């Protein structure tokens, strides 16, 4: 199991402080929520794709192309049936599809794609340990960040242990090739028992190892990796804040970018 989307390139985006990238992605999320008109959200998505290109990480996005297409299609198909609009295009057994609801569905599909792309942008340009470090510097308590970092480190180990257990059971005759997903679900329960027990044994070893090295959750910490905020970080954060302010002005004062009022 490969737990990283990191794409090692020497671009300006990769060199940004992880706090800037986390804050930046959160600002992009909020900018997306300012409009529900597809044209406006398409503009934001285009900007995110341009940043991806600048970060030389489009191949990360390509890896998840099926998920992104599914997200988009699902939203476009589903939302029109749950939103009421004035210009009715189709009416069938109480179900209505209007021009506004269609456009809203399209906007939500684009918004979802933008959300996922922005999240991927952070992961493609930031190593796991940099994300953890950034979270600590943003105020997440050290024990929580430690648990997160340890879990990221352990997940592939447990996945490998799980795969070994599954292979051992299959070699004893367990049928996991059934096409029925619910059948597989049911068969997973007995398989989860040895996975669980082996993981719990690991807990005791790890806790003893930590305690023997004097680990104290509330002790003050220093770190080998000390990222510095530079002028470039402030420029990025300042620009994104200005963009957000402009978008809020367009939505609240000018009423631009709205297909369905009263909804984000």
């Amino acid at each position, binding site marked *: 199991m490969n737990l990283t989307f990191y794409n090692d390139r020497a671009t300006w985006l990769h060199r940004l402080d992880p706090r800037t990238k986390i804050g930046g992605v959160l600002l992009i999320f909020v900018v997306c929520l300012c409009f529900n008109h597809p044209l406006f959200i398409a503009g934001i998505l285009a900007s995110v794709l341009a940043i991806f290109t600048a970060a030389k990480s489009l191949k990360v996005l390509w890896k998840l192309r099926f998920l992104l297409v*599914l997200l988009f299609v699902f939203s476009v198909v*589903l939302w029109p049936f749950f939103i009421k609009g004035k210009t009715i295009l189709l009416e069938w057994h109480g179900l209505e599809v209007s021009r506004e609801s269609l456009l809203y569905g399209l906007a939500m599909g684009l918004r979802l794609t933008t959300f996922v792309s922005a999240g991927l942008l952070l992961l493609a340009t930031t190593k796991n340990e940099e994300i953890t470090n950034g979270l600590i510097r943003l105020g997440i308590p050290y024990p929580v960040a430690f*648990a997160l970092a340890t*879990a990221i480190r352990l997940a592939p180990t447990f996945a490998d242990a799980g795969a070994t257990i599954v292979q051992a059971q299959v070699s004893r005759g367990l049928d996991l090739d059934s096409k029925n997903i619910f059948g597989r679900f049911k068969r997973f329960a007995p398989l989860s028992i040895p996975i669980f027990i082996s993981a719990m044994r690991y807990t005791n070893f790890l806790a003893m190892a*930590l305690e023997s090295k004097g680990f104290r959750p509330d002790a003050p910490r220093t770190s080998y990796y000390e990222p510095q905020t530079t002028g470039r970080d402030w420029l990025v954060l300042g620009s994104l804040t200005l963009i957000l302010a402009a978008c809020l002005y367009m939505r609240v004062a000018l009423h631009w970018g709205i297909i369905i009022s009263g909804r*984000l």
Partner: protein
Amino acid sequence: MQHALLMWKNTRMIVLTAVCAAIYAATLIAFKTVVPIIPGVTEVRVAGVFPMTFGFLFGPAGAWGLAIGNVIGDIFGGTLSPVSIAGFIGNFLMGYLPYALWTTLVPVSSGAYVWDAKSVRNWLTYIVIAFISGAAAAVVIGAFADAIGMVPYAIISKIITINNFIGSLIGILLLTAVFDVTKNQLRLFWPEVMDVSAANTGMKASFGAWLVAAGCILGVFGGFVPGLSWTVVSWLATCLIMGGSLLL
């Protein structure tokens, strides 16, 4: 809620959190794209067998582990979005409510914090709490997902509730199989790992437990009442669930 904060001072509970998060995340990622129900939001959740067991056996460590594990699952499953924040809270509730309701949801619960597979009352308590915790997560995630335009609440709340509930029912096998080993051999049963003297089991806690239960029922079925919109129902139910959880 006190234990959920106090546990961060206990090394063993922190390691348990990391281990629970790792198991949950590994299972979520492994099965993420097998059968998506709503792409990017939910799928047939094989990892659903873990929350009740983690919550009951490891208490707050299980709750935080599920919350962190879900975020890792979102990150490395490629579905990190604002809904991941609601996913964090919802999955925390899926681990928090099993241990918090087990002694407070009287008269459904006997008040004793133990798993006995031969006790019909234990099974009843398990099933009721499995429904409540699954529905609580569904309501909180659904309300947020609807508000930001990801998926309509009327659909997502039902899907997540059923998905979580079925997973928890199958998870009863896991709990039965590992309870004795965890408690007596590995000595990782949470009331024996950390100090639980501050347990909240009075009237206030019972009121909180029933508030959560009422919120879940309202959240799942309230929208069928004529004149009540799903949006109003979702936020009212979320407030009841969050308020009740804080009293536990």
